[in-house]
Every structure is written in C-alpha cells, then in structure tokens.
C-alpha cells in the first residue's frame, strides 16, 4: 500500500563543498535506521571512489528514509542528492524540481559561498521550502549568529528558526527531521490524473538496462504500464518499479508524490534524459512538466589512446561511460599527430577531468587529452558561420572575417581583503566588471563578464591561490561576443602538431607561445637528435626553442651480477615509455598535450 501523500516529504540538501552535506546525509540515514551503522559505509551517497576522493557528488543518488515523528506518525522522507559543482547546475535544477523542500546547509565558520547561493536561487525558482541548517557549530570558531545574519542579508531568508547542527557529532539531527516533516509541504498530486513523472537522474544496469530515477507528480506507475518519454515519444513497457533504501527495492507501484525508479528494458540512457517527463502511453498527459532541455556541452577536447591499438578499447569505454552519463558526448576524430581518437564534449572542466580519470582508472586506459576548447563561432569572408570546437579545424586566417567566443557571467564571493586580487585576476583574464556588493562588512560579491575560454584556462586554480582558497565561484553562459582571436600552432621538429594548436587572444599570443615552447622544452625528453620547437601564427614563427640531442643513456657496467637488475631497469623504463606518444619521429609525453592548459602566467 502506498502512503497517503500527506505522509511523504521530498527534499534535497544544498551545500557548498566541504560544508558537510554527505556527513549530514549519513546521519539522517543512520538516525532513521534506514541502514545500520555497520551497513553504513562512510558517506553512503557518494558511491564512486572518485567522488569520495574529491569530496564531491557527481552522480545523483536518492534514498527513502522512514521516520517516526513526534506526532506519532511515520513519514516517508525522500532525500534526493544534488551534485555539488557548477558543471552540473542543470542536474541540480532538475533534482530540486523533484522536491518540495530543501535543507540549506551552511558552514558555521565559512558562511555562504557563491555555489550555495546559485543553488538556493534554483530552489527558490522551484518554490521550495528552505530550511536553513548551520552546520559545524562544534568548531571553536563557529559563529552561528553571524551566519544567520548572512543568510538573511544575502538570500533574504528568515533565519530566526535556523537549526544549529553538527553532523559530525550527530547534533541537531532530530530537529532537522522534525523540521522536514513540519515545514516542508507534502507533495500535491493526484493518483487519478494521467501519469506525469520527472526524470532527475538515470543509471545503467547491465541486466535491467537504463533506469530512470523519477519523481511521480500525477498518476501512478507499476509493472506492465506502457510508458512514454514525452521528449522523444518513445514507448517502453515497465518491467519493475522500486524505491531506494538506498539499494533498489522492488515495490508494487509508485504513486503521485513518490520517488523511485523504473526499469523498462531501455537500452540507452540517452532515452532517459534528465528533465524529461514520463507519461502513460495509453493515457498520456496533455503536457510535459516544465524545464526540460538537452544537456549542452560547454567544453570540448580530444581523447586519444597512447597506443593506437587501444582505439577500440577507448571506444568501448566511452560507450560504457555514456550509458551512465547522458551528458557525455563523443564522436570520432582524427589527428595527424595522434591518429584515431574522439572529440568529446563535457558540461565543464570538472566533468572532463572526471571522465578522463574514470577512463584511466576503471578501464585501465592510457589516454592523451588535448587542451580543452570552447565552441567558437567563426564568421567567414563568404558570410558563413562555422561552429569550431577543435582548434585544428579553424579555417585559415584569410578566410576569417570575425570570431565570436562564448562569454559567461561569473559571480565571485570573497573576503573584502581579496577584492584587489580578484580585480587583478579578472583583468588578466579579459573580464569586464559588472557589479560589486557587500554581503556583510567583510565579504563581497563581485560579478564579471568573462570569456568562457579564460575560465577553463587555469582560472579556478588562480582564483583559489590568489585568495588563499577563500573565493568561491559560480558562472552561467550568457552569450557570444566578438573578440580578436588567433590560432596558435606548435611545430615540433618542423611539423605542426595539430593536437597542440589552440585559440588565443591576439594580445596574448606572443606571451603564451613563448611560455608554451619553454614548457614543452622541459617536458619533452631528449631524443636521439636535436628537436626544434616552434610556436607560429599562420606561417609566422613567434617563438622557438630546441631540445638538444640525447647523448648519454647507457649502463656503464653489465656483468653477471648486474644482469637481472639492469634488465628490470630497462623493463621499467620501457613501461614508462608507453606513456609517450610517437609524433612523427619524436616521442612526446602525455603531459605535453595538457601543457597548453597548465601554464601559470
């Protein structure tokens, strides 16, 4: 039997990285006895190793908690986790759309961060009831009163009834659960209306196929229902419905207001797109839930196997990753330098790094990632507009009338002492100042218009290092703007290495070119012959370095007692050589291809 929807609460947790979201989720799971302490591995919700290491959530998770409240009733609390990074803001907005309320977790020392604010706004847009929770009050420097004022002044939210908690010590957990029951409204919705369910995530199971995670708004769904994806019109027959405990548990049906999953032998996750609406094919809803859009790739790069024979393995791996990550795009690409590979599109830089790391870790692949690029709009002299996501495909200078680049509006929160540093950084990054507001007397919110390409190039690291880690950043794409951009080519041993080409503002081209050839000289090991490295715009060389020929690489002594050790040494070196890519007659290490990205100016 389904619970009356008045006994259901759907909520998520909004928090900045490190503010204790995962620990709090663990405490809630533990307190409600959903999992015993023994079963509760630390931070259940971050299920990928990578997520735990980085302390962030990449894939959404959901869990149903049963809580007996002080009024004696048992409530079904569905916690829908949100990813904690700007790259995934669309996913955040969809999981918030699946809820009626949210816990706003703010660190009692650090206060509100840019990312938190962005997500709070998303929650407010979705009319969510927000419960402020001030976490880490056990810290000696905790200042809950200051944080309350911040919440009131920055967000304009009444913080008088904010809950003081320490997820680490389990303090305030019951109060939070009570507040969820009392303050978050139960879902509205009608079992009798045609089915409308929002997909807020999906995952791939090798036995059950692509499994959408859903929130039912109206109607109900059970085994045997013919469901229809409203964006594509595709129809599937449901083979199983269930809930998360947090393991998947089969139930009879999911009713209006409930959260769970559907299995329907869906072959591709691309058929279970986040934000899409599922309806009953035999009795369809007249219109879909609002807010659906396809994931848009913001950052592109080439992925190539170090060993050309690994191409098929890489393709299979990308296919498998895409099963679980519909926002990962890829298509075949050929590079003169690197051979066969893939052009991949990502939601952002973090998304790119995660995919790259998973390919290496989970699939044991040795890959080369080319420098990330954004999509440029190139207006040609023939009045055509080309979309260029790969610098190698940039038309010749003479063909180009103008180039437009994507620009973002960036919001930065920072202690006021660092305002100067932020302004300096944004000036270097070709930013245009928009606004500056004092959040409190000591904290400032700055907004800038910045080229997206500058954000993906070393921006975040610089921001952190110049503000001792205190700044937080959020950004959104606002459009395209014309800029004086040129393509910079790198020639190694006289040949253009297409994978090293990048697009850069004209005024920076010389300095970047100089820096990059110097960097490459340090990264490329000495070869058996001298190797010149040049940076060029068109046919004009703007910087040159050369790597002198290797002259010593020898074992002086090799007698009976040395042989095993020497063989092993060579074996090890040979293994290390696998991380080098043969380009023409030069062997180039993987890092060289990322050098374009990691130059500190």
């Amino acid at each position: 039997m389904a619970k009356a929807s008045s006994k259901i609460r759907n909520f998520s947790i909004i928090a900045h990285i490190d503010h204790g979201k995962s620990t709090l989720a663990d405490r809630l799971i533990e307190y409600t006895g959903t999992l015993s302490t023994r079963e509760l591995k630390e931070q259940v919700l971050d299920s990928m190793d990578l997520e735990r290491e980085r302390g962030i959530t990449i894939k959404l998770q959901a869990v149903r908690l049963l809580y007996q409240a002080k009024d004696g009733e048992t409530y079904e609390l569905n916690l829908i986790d949100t990813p904690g990074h700007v790259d995934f803001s669309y996913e955040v907005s969809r999981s918030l759309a699946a809820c009626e309320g949210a816990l706003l977790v703010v660190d009692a020392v650090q206060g509100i961060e840019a990312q938190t604010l962005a997500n709070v706004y998303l929650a407010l847009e979705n009319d969510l009831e927000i419960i402020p929770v001030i976490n880490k009050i056990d810290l000696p420097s905790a200042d809950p009163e200051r944080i309350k004022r911040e919440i009131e002044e920055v967000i304009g939210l009444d913080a008088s009834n904010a809950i003081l908690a320490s997820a680490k010590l389990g303090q305030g957990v019951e109060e939070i659960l009570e507040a969820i029951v009392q303050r978050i409204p139960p879902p509205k919705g009608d079992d009798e209306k045609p089915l409308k369910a929002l997909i807020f995530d999906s995952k791939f199971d090798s036995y059950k196929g692509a499994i959408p995670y859903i929130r039912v708004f109206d109607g109900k769904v059970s085994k045997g229902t013919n469901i229809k994806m409203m964006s594509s019109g595709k129809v599937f027959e449901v083979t199983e419905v269930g809930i998360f405990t947090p393991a998947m548990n089969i139930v009879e049906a999911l009713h209006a207001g409930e959260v769970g999953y559907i299995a329907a032998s869906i072959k591709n996750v691309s058929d279970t797109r986040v934000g899409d609406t599922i309806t009953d094919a035999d009795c369809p809803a007249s219109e879909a839930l609002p807010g659906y859009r396809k994931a848009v790739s913001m950052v592109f790069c080439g992925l190539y196997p170090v060993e050309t024979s690994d191409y098929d393995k890489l393709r299979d791996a990308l296919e498998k990753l895409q099963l679980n990550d519909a926002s990962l795009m890829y298509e075949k690409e050929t590079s003169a330098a690197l051979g066969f590979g893939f052009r991949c599109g990502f939601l952002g830089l973090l998304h790119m790094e995660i995919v790259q790391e998973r390919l290496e870790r989970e699939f044991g692949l040795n890959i080369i990632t080319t420098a990330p690029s954004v999509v440029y709009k190139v207006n040609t002299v023939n009045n055509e507009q080309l979309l260029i996501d790969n610098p190698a495909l940039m038309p010749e200078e003479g063909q180009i009338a103008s180039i437009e680049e994507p620009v973002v509006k960036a919001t930065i929160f920072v202690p006021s002492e660092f305002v100067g540093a932020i302004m300096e950084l944004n000036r270097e990054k070709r930013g245009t100042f928009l606004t500056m507001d004092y959040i409190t007397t000591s904290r400032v919110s700055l907004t800038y218009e910045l080229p997206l390409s500058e954000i993906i190039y070393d921006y975040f690291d610089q921001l952190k290092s110049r503000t001792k880690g205190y700044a937080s950043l959020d950004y959104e794409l606002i459009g395209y703007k014309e800029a004086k951009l040129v393509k910079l080519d790198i020639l190694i041993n006289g040949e253009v290495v297409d994978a090293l080409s990048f697009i850069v503002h004209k005024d920076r081209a010389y300095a970047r070119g100089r820096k990059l050839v110097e960097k490459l000289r340090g990264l490329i090991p000495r070869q058996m012959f001298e190797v010149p490295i040049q940076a060029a715009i068109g046919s004009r060389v703007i910087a040159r370095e050369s790597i002198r020929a290797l002259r010593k690489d020898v074992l002086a002594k090799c007698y009976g007692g040395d042989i095993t050790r020497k063989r092993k040494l060579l074996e090890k070196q040979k293994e290390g050589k696998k991380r080098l890519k043969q380009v023409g007659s030069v062997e180039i290490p993987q890092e060289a291809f990322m050098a374009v990205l990691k130059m500190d100016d």
Partner: protein
Amino acid sequence: MPSLYVHVPFCRRKCNYCAFFSIPYTKAEVSSYLRGIKREIGLRLQEAEGGISSLILGGGTPTVLSREELECLLDSLELFAFQAGAEKTVEANPGTLDSGKLDLLLSYGFNRISLGIQSFDNDLLKKIGRIHSAQDVYHSIKLIRQAGFENINLDLMFGLPGQTISAWQETLQRAVDQEPEHLSLYALTIEEGTPLARLAAEGEEGIVPDDDLQADMYELATDYLQKQGYLHYEISNFARPSFECRHNLSYWRSEEYMGLGPGAVSCLNGVRYKNWENIFKYSNITQKGSKPVDPLETEILTPKQLISEYIMLGLRTAEGIDPELFARKFGRQIQDIYGQLLLKYINKKIIYLEKGRIKLNPSYYFVANSIIRDFILE
C-alpha cells in the same frame, strides 16, 4: 661449461661511489668467509662437473687478504676442473699487492690482473675515497710486470666530481703509457645508498656527472684508444687484439656462470640466483649443509626474459649477435621476433649487419639503452 666468479667481499675501506657488497677487512670475518667458501664449494662442485671455462676472483678487493688467507682460498678453488689454458683473473687494488701474493697467484695459474686505478689524479682519488695514489699505481704495475704477468687490465672512471676533460685526457694518456693489454672505462654512475648519492641528495654541486661532459669524455677516450691500437670490443671495454676478457665475453654471450661467495650471482640452466649478502648468514647456512641462496633473489628466467637479455648483452659488444646462434639457442628466428624493430634501426643506420652478424653502431654505444629498451620483451 660455465665460467666461475668468486666474490671476496672485503675492502680496506669502501669507495664513495661503490654499491657492491663489501665490508671492512677483519681477521675474524675473513676466516668465517674462508670456511664458508670451502663448504659452498663442497655443496656445489657437481654443478660444474663439465669443468670451468674461466675464473674471476673479484670483490671487494681479493688482494686485501693476507698471503696465507689468499692461499687458503686458492687451495679451495683447486677442486674445480679448469679448462686447459683457462683465463684466470684476479682483481686488485694498488697498495694491496706485494711480490709474495703475486707469485702465489701465478703459481695457482692466474694469468690476468685487473687493477682498479680509476684515475691518475691524486685529488680526485682522494675525493672518491680511494686508498691509493698515482705513485702506488706505477709501483704496483711494475711489481706485476716483474712477477711475470702478461695481461693487465686497468679500470678507469670518468665524470668524477670536478673532473675536467683535460684531466681525463691526461689520465688516459698516463694509463696508455703503462701499456696495459686491456682497459675498462666506466662512466661514473651515482648508485643509490652510496656516499656520493647522499652528497648529491644534500644538494652538493658537481656530484652528479653532466651527461654532455661524460659523453664528450667517452668520445675522446674511444677515439684516442682506437688510435693507440686498442679494440673497442664492448661499451666500456678496450683491448689489444686477442686480449679481450674471455670471462666477461661469456656474460655478454649469455653463457652460464657460477658465482661463489656471499652476494655472488649464478646463472645455470635458465635459473638466476644470488647468495645471501651477509657473511654470517652465508657461513651459517653452509654450515647446516644448505646452499647459501637467498630465495627472494632467485629467478626462473622466462623465454622472453632470456631473449631480452641475450639482445641486451649482445648489442653491447662489437661482435654483436649471430642470428644462427640465436636461432639454435631459442628455436626461433631473430627476425620473426624483432623483424620490424631491426629494420627500423637498420634504416636509421643505428644497427647494421656485418658478416651476417647484427651489431650496434658504436656511435650509439653511449645511448645504447635508448635502443636496447625497445628490444625488451614483455
């Protein structure tokens, strides 16, 4: 028929660059060592039933032993059946030789002396912790010749801390003036755990040799010695015609060898094993009637490893690799395994064929690893 290496792990003091197993000379430890060797020979004699092709008595410093101790050791070795005319080398350091020891060695059939002189520059010798001076070298060579040895090797090192190219040239000239039949020239390598490695880690300048300077020194030496009539027959070795070291050639031809003494390595029937690098362990285990082998240092070589080593060693030598011998040894044609790789290097003139043998172009000796690496099979 294997060759025999006997390790004498004693030195008056350890040199700053040395990573070999050696300990300071003490009467007590030498006597426990000598008893151990005797027992090991008893345990392993049947491994050399077909005889021994050549011998090196090495170290350490074998000549640091007293005459009596040396005689005891040589006596024990008499149990082996050495091939007629077998090359028998003893390694020696200037300052540890006298005519008594030399006569003794001669009487036991030793016909080659390898003298570790490293340099003729007294400042450098001190810096690297050698116990002798250039004068000791002249004196030792004179003694050796007077005793009647007709085959002398001199070990030299280049790229020593602070050594200039002209200082190296002078050392070379002085060495050649002594008319040795054989010269070994070793590029200084900073080995882990040595005093030089510690100094380098502490940031002392000029310890880690400069690659380009060492390469220049190597080029200078190879040119000069060839002009003086020495054959450059292995990366680090030079000899007058017919004075190539037969014992070492047998390593580079991947022939079998037997090693006696603590820390010595044997390679017989495709198994390589190493004795305990510890005098007491060595002595105790042999006393219990077991072979003093360190089980963690035993390796059953796979065919791929055997082939890799065969190439690794063969390409170090001027005689190179004989494809027919290779095929006989491994039951496969060398070109079936390495065809493309060989072709690539032959096209670049880095490897060449001469009288049917595969050889590394000597211009690439000093970067040999870069090439050999590609031949290591996984």
